[in-house]
């Protein structure tokens, strides 16, 4: 073997090591910047933060975590066991209520988990330095689900830290009594931090120990099982049955297999190479990997537990364990590929050259030489796959959770305004909130209801909501905050249809800040509200309900109805002739006789009648599509609200409504035809006037709905009637 061959054999390994180290380091850096960014943000990043913070404060105040009676306010459910809550209470006892300490705690738990993953990998690769551990730890931190969840004051990452710590102890010393005892304690802590983390790691640990020493495995099962049941029994008795109700019964939500499919696809897309390789590992891994006996059960049971993500309201926290399993797998893979085919140290040629002297060729056995090259090729291939995974995951993290959090953080002043409104309203009565409920806890304002958990119980007919509905109807609450994500109407899971109906009947959304609607009691004495989509004295109906408020933008009104895509009906505002112009994808227009200018025509426009980014299956009724001059009557159904704004934009479920002038012959103005696309440049009022159109047209005059004089930016308007309607 000559010098050149030795150099390639040695330095191509250095290449793999360097590139892997760089991308692992980059992943860790991205994770840390994101974590620090989240820690520095004072307001809620997730609905669950409010719930956890509230439970912590209740514990600090000596209130029961698992009350047996939830038939009277406060209506609260504690979905999780108490370990995290106890530890958080200890920390918040020192600092007072805030999100910062909790987030630091969670970030530290995430880093701790990555370190333990590294230690597990190191145990199986003691000779291969830091790299396999760094790869496993870095990969765990950059998986978008882990990175996203590490920013929240929530329980899951502490639970996974406990579970992998237990796993590490039994992997390291399966026969030592101390390890078995400590592992059982860690598994119990994991299970009593979050119940679903009490399965995969203990099963994997038991099988691993079983392969080493059956007696120790039985010990582990008995210690974990019996102590776990005893603790459960004690808490159950102390809480007078409340514990079982809160963490088991109240957690049985409706199940949706589409959600499972969606997240399974996400895992597959993000970790596709590792999924394939794990398939191979499953088949032949027992021949090459010592880790097989613990990793296979850990992965499979984690996957089985992850299926519970199908429960309504579940999120990516159900995937954290399977992410840890894949991270361990990646590290073990790199460790193993460092030298897949074993070569005796005596037979390997000397690769440590003198600095200044080209070494002479060295005799080498052909088999050794071949194995060295096979090992190198395998290392390069596996490294390429892992590097590809790092790149995919880093990009996905930057595109999704990091960008989402950035957008959320950038809503800046909105949070302060919401907080001020909460503080003011709380002086008058209880405030209800969902996504931003943590703002209540931070300001020591008690919860009246935990909307999601209680609504799920009500929807399952396990909680009588009549008392709460009465309180809404009596306008007991000076402020109700309902979050409205642009992409998905989560509020439909957080509030029952009956609660929403009661809120829409008695409250009006007056402000829309940081994507949350501030509902305040309707003032029936001074303001009139649309009834059956009609405002008093207005000649036309309102095209669709907008219980979630309206946006005024460039003389168009986006009416936001409550419901999913394609569920909220859109009606003709008056008698007329409906046109669905061939170039339009998600809109229709109706030509009417102008009620204020007899003999003249005027147009009403209805846009956004399609799902986001797709108009192939739009929500316009079939018998209108592509047709013109179809007679319609006031109140005729023409389609349903959608999220479509244009080919590249989406927004809240809405319909876009406008009243437009007609050409002299009554036809739709050619210059306004691009209106189908929200982003299209339309003529200004001045240009329309120059073209001979009688503008501006008052939308208020025709429909009674309010409007704004502001141009160029979206203005939120409450769904109420303007006193100037019909004038």
């Amino acid at each position: 073997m000559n010098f050149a061959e030795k150099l390639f054999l040695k330095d191509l390994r250095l290449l793999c090591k360097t590139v892997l180290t760089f991308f692992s380091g980059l992943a860790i850096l991205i994770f840390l910047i994101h974590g620090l960014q989240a820690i520095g943000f004072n307001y809620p990043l997730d609905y669950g933060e409010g719930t956890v913070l509230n439970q912590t404060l209740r514990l600090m105040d000596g209130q029961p975590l698992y009350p047996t009676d939830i038939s009277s306010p406060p209506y609260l459910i504690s979905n999780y066991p108490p370990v995290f809550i106890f530890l958080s209470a200890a920390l918040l006892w020192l600092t007072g209520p805030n999100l910062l300490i909790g987030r630091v705690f969670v970030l530290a738990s995430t880093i701790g988990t990555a370190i333990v993953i590294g230690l597990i990998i190191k145990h199986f690769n003691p000779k291969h330095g830091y790299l396999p551990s760094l790869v496993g730890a870095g990969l765990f931190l950059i998986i978008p689900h882990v990175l996203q969840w590490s920013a929240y004051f929530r329980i899951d990452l502490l639970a996974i830290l406990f579970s992998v710590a237990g796993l590490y102890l039994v992997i390291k010393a399966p026969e030592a009594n101390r390890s078995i005892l400590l592992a059982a304690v860690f598994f119990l802590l994991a299970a009593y931090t979050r119940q679903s983390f009490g399965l995969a790691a203990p099963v994997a640990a038991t099988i691993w120990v079983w392969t080493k020493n059956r007696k120790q495995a039985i010990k582990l099962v008995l210690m974990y099982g019996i102590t776990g049941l005893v603790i459960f029994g004690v808490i159950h008795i102390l809480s007078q049955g409340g514990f079982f109700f809160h963490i088991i019964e109240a957690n049985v939500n409706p199940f949706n297999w589409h959600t499972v499919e969606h997240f399974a696809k996400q895992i597959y897309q993000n970790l596709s190479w590792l999924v394939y390789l794990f398939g191979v590992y499953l088949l032949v891994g027992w021949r090459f990997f010592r880790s097989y006996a613990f990793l296979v059960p850990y992965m499979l049971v984690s996957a089985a537990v992850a299926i519970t993500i199908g429960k309504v309201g579940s999120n990516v926290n159900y995937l954290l364990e399977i992410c840890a399993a894949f991270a361990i797998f990646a590290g073990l893979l790199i460790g193993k590929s460092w030298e897949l085919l074993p070569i005796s140290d005596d037979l390997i040629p000397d690769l440590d050259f003198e600095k200044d002297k080209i070494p002479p060729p060295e005799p080498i056995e052909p088999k050794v030489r071949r194995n060295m090259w096979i090992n190198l090729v395998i290392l390069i291939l596996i490294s390429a796959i892992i590097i590809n995974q790092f790149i995919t995951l880093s990009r996905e993290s930057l595109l999704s959770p990091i960008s989402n959090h950035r957008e959320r953080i950038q809503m800046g002043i909105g949070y302060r305004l919401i907080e001020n409104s909460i503080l003011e309203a709380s002086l008058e009565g209880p405030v209800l909130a969902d996504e931003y409920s943590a703002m209540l806890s931070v300001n020591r304002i008690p919860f009246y209801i935990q909307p999601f958990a209680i609504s799920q119980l009500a929807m399952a007919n396990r909680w009588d909501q009549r008392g709460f509905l009465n309180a809404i109807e009596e306008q007991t609450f000076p402020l109700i905050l309902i979050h409205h994500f642009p992409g998905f109407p989560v509020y439909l899971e957080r509030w029952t249809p009956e609660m929403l109906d009661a809120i829409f009947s008695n409250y009006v959304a007056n402000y829309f800040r940081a994507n949350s609607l501030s509902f305040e009691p309707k003032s029936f004495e001074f303001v009139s509200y649309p009834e059956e989509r009609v405002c008093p004295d207005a000649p036309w109906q309102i095209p669709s309900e907008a219980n979630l408020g309206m946006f005024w933008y460039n003389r168009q009104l986006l009416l936001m109805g409550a419901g999913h895509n394609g569920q909220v009906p859109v009606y003709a505002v008056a008698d007329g002739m409906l046109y669905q112009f061939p170039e339009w994808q998600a809109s229709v227009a109706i030509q009417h006789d102008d009620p204020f200018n007899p003999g003249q025509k005027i147009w009403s426009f209805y846009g956004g009648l399609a799902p986001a980014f797709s108009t192939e299956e739009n929500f316009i009724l079939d018998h209108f599509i592509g047709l013109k001059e179809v007679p319609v009557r006031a109140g005729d159904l023409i389609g349903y609200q959608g999220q479509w704004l244009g080919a590249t934009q989406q927004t809240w479920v809405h319909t876009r409504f406008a009243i437009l002038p007609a050409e002299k012959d009554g036809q739709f103005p050619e210059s306004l035809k691009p209106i189908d696309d929200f982003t299209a440049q339309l003529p200004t009022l001045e240009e329309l006037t120059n073209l001979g159109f009688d503008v501006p047209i008052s939308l208020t005059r025709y429909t009674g709905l309010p409007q704004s004089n502001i141009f160029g930016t979206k203005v939120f308007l409450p769904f109420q009637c303007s006193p100037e309607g019909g004038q």
Partner: protein
Amino acid sequence: MGNKAYDNKRPNILLNLVTIILWLISSIVGFLLIIPILNSITRIYAAFFADPSPIGLAFFLGVSIRNIALFILAILLLIGSIGGAEHHFRNINTPTSWHVMFVTYIILFTAILFTIHF
């Protein structure tokens, strides 16, 4: 060892030429990579802090980071290029020279991967 071809220190013109060409390519590629690396750093920065406002704090912070990164990369390029030349000149056609060349290309390859994907 008895093999004279490996013992003597006769200059090998071909290998010297290869070293010079490889060094030259690495310096040029290193220079050409500076802007793509800055772009990738800016894109990562933007994922965290982008702000639509052209006069916002995020914009100026982004510009500052880019300028500082430019300074650091320029220094590194100078060190790598001049230091590399010096090292190869002193140790031409020795294991240490080839190893340094290999390491140089490993760094460039890593940087290329980074700029392609970020």
